[in-house]
């Protein structure tokens, strides 16, 4: 079933997802833009060159038109001169001749096509010829030979001679004009072609970009739906906050549901506890700065806390397990913090019920065990009448079994207390030597019965430790009881204590039965007993080392051992000079 989603928050998150997942999209768009810019530059350059070329061609076309005009003009002027011998026509002829010649000469570099070159050469030659002929015609016309037959003959001969170069000039000018006009036209066509093809190119680029973007967008959309679905269906609360403000970025539906009220988007790092009535178990406000979120923002590390409660507006108090984790970018800068929280009210209740059950059961067991212990004691006493040897032996066995049962019940009680996590840790300033001596006294009867030698080396200047004596006593008691129990009669047990860097290292060494290699990995497990001692020493409940390890772990110490089967075992453990106090509810017996 899809849960109801607070769209706003998911949406905001999806925007962020978009930001992240669009990195590749951005890269693609960037490369497309680069290509487009490059092509634009090339097209622009080409366009510019083509335009310049076109302008040149246009200019040439103008020039050739002017030449053509001048040449035609000159023919008309020469005709006019021949008819009227007007001075005006004569001077204009030369002007036009000069214009045409100048234009031609000035623009020689531009007439670069072979046809153009040959036409220009021909025209230059014709200009010279026609000028000479026109000058001859002038000198003839202005000479005294006028109106003589030879004059007319000579004049018409000159006019005839002039016709050829002039016609050639005109056809050359016209040819040039046509050629340059054609070039200008071609240049213009090229510009149009380039323009149209660049338009085509841009259309393709545009379509490709659109395709890439829409593809990416649909992928992002899927990612968004994925994230939405995951977040909204997770049975735990998930919450993302900005660093360092602690302001919310995202919260999933279960997260809101657990808060028991609508989500406040303006909450920040200092106001979480007040806003959502986050408390300790005793109902006192949980200091905002001690919340996992605040600690992650402060230190950039992950945190987990199990002592957080929320008093919801409906009056329900729920227990939460809250963990927080940093979200950093590639360079390790803290960007966001994630908080995951779940309702552990039931879990706590069940756990408490289990502990209470064991505690109650053990307590109830203790009463009849106490009665048995006392009746057996009375039975064995002098006032209950004389017992036969056989009866006495049976009663001693009964008593031993009863004592074992009492030990087991005690150990079970202790295990349940440690496992409940409600164990009181109450460090006080203690002299370790006193604790060890107390334990030695407790096991004295046992070691004396087995005639075992005890060797204790504790430095006289051992500083006082700040530890819970009840817990530490249990560690030495269990290790020494084991050492005595699992060492043959007449064996040796050594206890060595040394102060090392900031901690105390203790060693309990025996030359007893040792731990078989196959059992070594399991000896700290609950109820586990080494196979080699099951027959030698059938009493024992497999809880001693489990308790020892649990206590040392809780004290932030370390324990390890070395053992050779048949030669003995050495347990070494470290304890910090100072234990952290813990407000619990139960203590060890």
């Amino acid at each position, binding site marked *: 079933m899809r849960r109801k989603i607070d769209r706003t928050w998911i949406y905001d998150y999806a925007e962020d997802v978009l930001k992240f997942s669009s990195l590749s999209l951005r890269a693609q768009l960037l490369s497309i833009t680069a290509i487009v810019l490059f092509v634009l530059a090339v097209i622009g350059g080409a366009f510019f060159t083509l335009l310049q070329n076109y302008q040149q061609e246009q200019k040439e076309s103008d020039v050739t038109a002017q030449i053509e005009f001048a040449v035609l003009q000159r023919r008309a002027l020469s005709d006019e001169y021949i008819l009227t011998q007007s001075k005006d026509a004569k001077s204009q002829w030369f002007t036009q001749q000069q214009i045409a010649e100048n234009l031609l000469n000035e623009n020689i570099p531009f007439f670069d096509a072979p046809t153009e070159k040959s036409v220009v050469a021909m025209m230059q030659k014709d200009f010279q010829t026609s000028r000479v002929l026109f000058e001859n015609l002038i000198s003839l016309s202005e000479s005294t030979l006028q109106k003589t037959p030879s004059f007319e003959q000579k004049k018409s001969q000159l006019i005839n001679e002039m016709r050829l170069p002039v016609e050639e000039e005109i056809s050359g000018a016209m040819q040039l004009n046509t050629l340059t006009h054609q070039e200008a036209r071609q240049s213009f066509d090229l510009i149009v072609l380039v323009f149209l093809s660049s338009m085509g190119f841009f259309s393709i680029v545009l379509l490709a970009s659109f395709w890439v973007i829409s593809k990416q967008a649909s992928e992002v959309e899927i990612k968004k739906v994925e994230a939405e679905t995951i977040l909204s269906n997770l049975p735990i609360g998930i919450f993302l906050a900005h660093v360092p403000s602690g302001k919310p970025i995202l919260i999933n539906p279960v997260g809101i549901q657990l808060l028991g009220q609508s989500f406040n988007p303006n909450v920040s790092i200092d106001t979480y506890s007040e806003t959502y009535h986050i408390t300790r178990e005793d109902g006192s406000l949980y200091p905002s700065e001690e919340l996992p979120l605040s600690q992650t923002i402060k230190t950039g590390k992950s945190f987990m806390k199990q002592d957080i409660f929320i008093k919801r507006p409906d009056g329900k108090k729920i227990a939460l397990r809250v963990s927080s984790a940093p979200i950093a970018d590639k360079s390790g800068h803290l960007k966001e913090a994630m908080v995951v929280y779940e309702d552990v009210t039931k879990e706590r209740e069940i756990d408490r019920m289990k502990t209470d059950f064991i505690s109650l059961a053990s*307590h109830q067991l*203790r*009463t*009849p*065990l*106490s*009665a048995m*212990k*006392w*009746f057996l*004691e*009375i039975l064995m*006493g002098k*006032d209950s009448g004389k017992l036969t040897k056989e009866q006495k032996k049976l009663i001693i066995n009964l008593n031993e079994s009863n004592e074992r049962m*009492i030990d087991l*019940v*005690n150990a079970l009680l202790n295990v349940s207390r440690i496992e409940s996590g409600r164990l*009181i840790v109450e460090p006080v300033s203690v002299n370790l030597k006193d604790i060890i001596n107390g334990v030695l006294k407790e096991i004295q009867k046992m070691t004396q019965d087995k005639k075992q030698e005890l060797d204790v080396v504790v430095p006289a200047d051992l500083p006082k430790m700040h530890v819970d004596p*009840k817990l530490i006593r249990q560690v030495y008691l269990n290790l020494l009881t084991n050492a005595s129990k699992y060492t043959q009669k007449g064996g040796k047990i050594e206890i060595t204590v040394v102060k090392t860097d900031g901690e105390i290292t203790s060693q309990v060494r025996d030359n007893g039965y040792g731990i078989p290699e196959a059992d070594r990995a399991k000896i700290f497990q609950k109820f586990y007993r080494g196979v080699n001692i099951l027959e030698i020493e059938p009493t024992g409940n497999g809880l001693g080392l489990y308790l020892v390890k649990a206590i040392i772990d809780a004290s932030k110490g370390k324990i390890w051992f070395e053992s050779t089967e048949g030669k003995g075992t050495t347990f070494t453990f470290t304890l910090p000079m100072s234990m952290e106090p813990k407000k619990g509810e*139960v*203590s060890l*017996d």
Partner: protein
Amino acid sequence: MKKILVAEDDKFLASAYKLKLAKEGFDVKIVGDGLETSRAIQAFQPDLIILDLIMPRKDGFAVLQELHANPQLSHIPVIVASNLGQKEDIEKALQMGAIDFIVKSDLSMEDLVKKIRAKLA
């Protein structure tokens, strides 16, 4: 003969007390719940009380409180005998006026008698 009042709801344990303490020469009265205990303190005027903590009708702490509040009776030494053995219970009982605390399953009758004799001496 010194009078000892034993408040113990478990009848087997109660009879063990009775058996042992009577043999040791004490005048023993056994009561099985808190209300009965209160009444017996007045009527029996014991020299010492052995008080269980978990009892029907009224628990051992309530009896202690009552006893402590009564100046005529507050001098009677009380040994709390329980199977709880928890630090807080021990501290609470001692704070409320008990002179000693024993965990029944951890103590032999012999040691209990020694304790009683010491307290009465």
